[in-house]
């Protein structure tokens, strides 16, 4: 029975307008409201689907953030067995994915996972997605853009999405890290009373992360809202005319 770990992070909630901090290098976290990364939500769903089908245990790990407890209790209400909250003073400030992936890897290792599932991407991935980094630090294979997972004879049979509407079936030996694009089923609804019940009965393991090592990540020089450049030119006409015009422009700028 597989031991499954789902790695989840909270990302900026886009219902609020985003603001840039005073130094102009990141989001103003005082105004930030965070929500579970939608892809991670799918990863949790996929983990629970596997558990329901093949048995096993699901552990959800998430770094500290506002509302992370509620989010973890929600995963427990869906069927996760263990909830782990990573804490460190710097999480509130925001850390890059290299640091986060190291913290995830260190904790995930303890559960000797057969499968690590996480969202294939997030809206605040500046230094690449979390999945491949975790795989690298743990020395496991990684497959991204996954839309379905089955466990068979110690292997995972996965379905991977390609651009252009193609999907492929692949086999990967375990343990492995999978970047989930979409769960087999969309994330289920959990009634509030179930979540509230979990708040009363379930417990979150809190784990103090010793060190956050952002090495390998990137440094942001400037972050800014898209500026109105006023350079857009609408090309009009039928398909042939537009294509001809495009070729002309490409030649002009030296791209062809």
């Amino acid at each position: 029975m597989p031991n499954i770990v789902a790695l989840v992070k909270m990302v900026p909630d886009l219902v609020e307008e985003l603001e840039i901090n005073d130094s102009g290098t990141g989001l103003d976290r005082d105004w930030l409201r965070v929500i579970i990364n939608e892809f991670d939500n799918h990863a949790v769903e996929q983990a629970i689907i596997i558990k329901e089908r093949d048995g096993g245990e699901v552990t959800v790990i998430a770094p500290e953030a506002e509302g992370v407890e509620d989010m973890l209790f929600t995963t427990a209400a869906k069927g996760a067995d263990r909830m782990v909250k990573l804490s460190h003073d710097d999480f509130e400030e925001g850390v890059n994915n290299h640091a986060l992936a190291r913290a995830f890897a260190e904790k995930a290792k303890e559960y000797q996972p057969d499968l690590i599932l996480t969202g294939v991407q997030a809206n605040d991935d500046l230094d690449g997605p979390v999945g491949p980094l975790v795989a690298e630090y743990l020395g496991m294979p990684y497959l991204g853009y996954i839309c379905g997972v089955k466990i068979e004879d110690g292997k995972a049979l996965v379905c991977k999405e390609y651009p252009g509407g193609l999907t492929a079936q692949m086999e990967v030996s375990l343990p492995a890290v999978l970047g989930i694009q979409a769960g087999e089923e969309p994330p289920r609804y959990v009634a509030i009373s179930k979540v509230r019940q979990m708040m009363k009965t379930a417990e979150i393991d809190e784990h103090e992360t010793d060190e956050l090592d952002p090495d390998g990540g990137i440094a942001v020089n400037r972050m800014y809202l898209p500026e109105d450049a006023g350079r857009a030119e609408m090309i009009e006409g039928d398909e042939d005319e537009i294509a001809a015009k495009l070729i002309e422009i490409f030649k002009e700028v030296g791209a062809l």
Partner: protein
Amino acid sequence: MPERTNYWGIPHTWGEPETFVYIIMFLSAAIMLFRFYKRASLWWQIGRPEARWDKIPQRLWLVVKYAIVQTRSLRQRYPGIMHAAIAWSFFVFFLGTALATVHDHFFEFLHGNILIVYKFTLDIFTIIFLIGAGMAIYRRYQEKPEKLTYDEGFTRTLVLITVIVLTGLFTESLRLAAERSGISAWSPAGHLLAQLWISTGATEKALTNWHLGAWIIHLLTVAFTLITLPVSTLLHALTAPLNIFFSKLDRPIGALAPTATTEDDEPIFASKLSDLTWKQLLDADACTECGRCQDACPAFNAGTPLSPKQLMLSLRESFVHNGTKPVLTGEAIPEDVLWACTTCGACVQECPVLVEHIDTIVDLRRYLVIEGMVDAELQTALMNLGRYGNSFGKSERMRARWSKGMEPKIKNANKEAVEYLWFVGDYASYSPTLTEITKQTAEVFQKVGLDFGIMYKGENHAGNDVRRVGEEGLFEMLAEKNMKAMSKADYQAIITTDPHSYNTLKNEYPANGGQPVLHYTELLDQLIASGALRFSKKLDYKVTYHDPCYLGRYNGVYDAPRRIIEATGCEIVEMPRNRDCALCCGAGGGRIWMEEGEIEERPSESRIREAVELGGVTDFIVACPKDVTMYRDAVKTVGAEEKIIVKDLIELVYEAL
């Protein structure tokens, strides 16, 4: 002086006829009661306990009103009169038989004029019965409305009761024919028929023999009817009064009960028969299959799989098999049936035997919600409500954005004392198409000098429809948040724009200091009456008014909006389905958040057609923000843009100010 002859013409060959009659009747009644007990015991053997034994005098009054006088049944003329004619006649026959027994054994009083009145009454009711039975035959075999059940059980019952009354009439008339009594004209039907017998030239002996035959058939048919009653369609004669007696008195129709819990405080999410209470099972057994609920049901008429009548019959069907078909959700009662309900209350309003359909529907929905069996659109709405306190998935900071730029700025009721706390509601706050109307509402309030405020981001969705979707936990959470915000405000009364918020705030929220909750139409009506609101213009539109379910049927506010409309100078032309018969727009009970599914005609479209058919009505007036949305869409889809405009009542007020 006329005297009553007991057992006239019945031979005493085998002893006193009386003894036989009593033995036969006693045995039949005993068998009936035993069989009924067997059936009824299923209710409490399968169903959960529920206390409905309080307020006995009030309950008895309900029985008089609904089971004996049958006011509900009489709401519909033809079937009402038909049923009353049959039922009241039988009440009179029972009473007559009982009085005869009293006369025979305890206290002789049936002679002289009393006897004449007695005979006359019984005879007249015989005629009334025959009229009722005739109407029933015409209805069932000629008119054949869709809502009825065409099962031979109904035919059998009709035949049995008609045979009972006819053989009774034959017995009487044959006796009259043989006796040639002087007072026979006081039994007009019997007298007339007696003339027929006399005209056959039969001897007194022959007439007496025929009389004996009719009497025996009469007696045996009564016995047979009694014995088979608990398994026939006449069962309702017992279950309906019981259901009426045990109907809910602890809360108004606008208040749902919280999720039930077990003794260990575990919530019960109803998915099987045994999760329902005995009263919910009794509901199903009391259903007379009259189909009135189905006829009034917007979901049924839209072509969805829901029929409230069929819902009751499916429930009955599953438990008369003594729990061998115990699973309701998804089996005996498909999910789409449960989701189709708009909780409009029309079924509950129409049911002559006070069946409580909505409570059962919501109980079963609660199970679907707890199992996560909700459609994607509903899921999104619920998640938004849980996270942001509104179904639009917008930030709570944007709740009062509609008021931006208004001068003077609307008071924040969480910061300063106001007389009226205005609970704006989700649609009025967030829906871009309603911004103008919400602003006009605020301006009207300002112009009449109302001291009012709103709670800005402190307001959450009130939860009326969240509760009716079956998401009780979310409802509780929203209610707690609102209660907390309201407890921080200083106000004398609450006003709402939305009838749905109005209903839950008024009927379901714990009384918050006892301040009254008013719909804005009630407030404006009061202001007009007190002279605080005066109109400077006289509008002369010909309008029709649509009663929102949660304002009208649920809370009885019918006249206030009409008085306001008239005060603006408009003329109201009523649609055929008005006031408590108003058709639902289809948005309630959370339907506005759900996938529409397969339907034939949207209730809102049917409603707009109804209004257009009135001819000459230019404005369709509503008093609910959801109605504005629903009906403006419907006007477009039925292509009636040229004929009718949908307006909120406040727009008329604003215009006439």
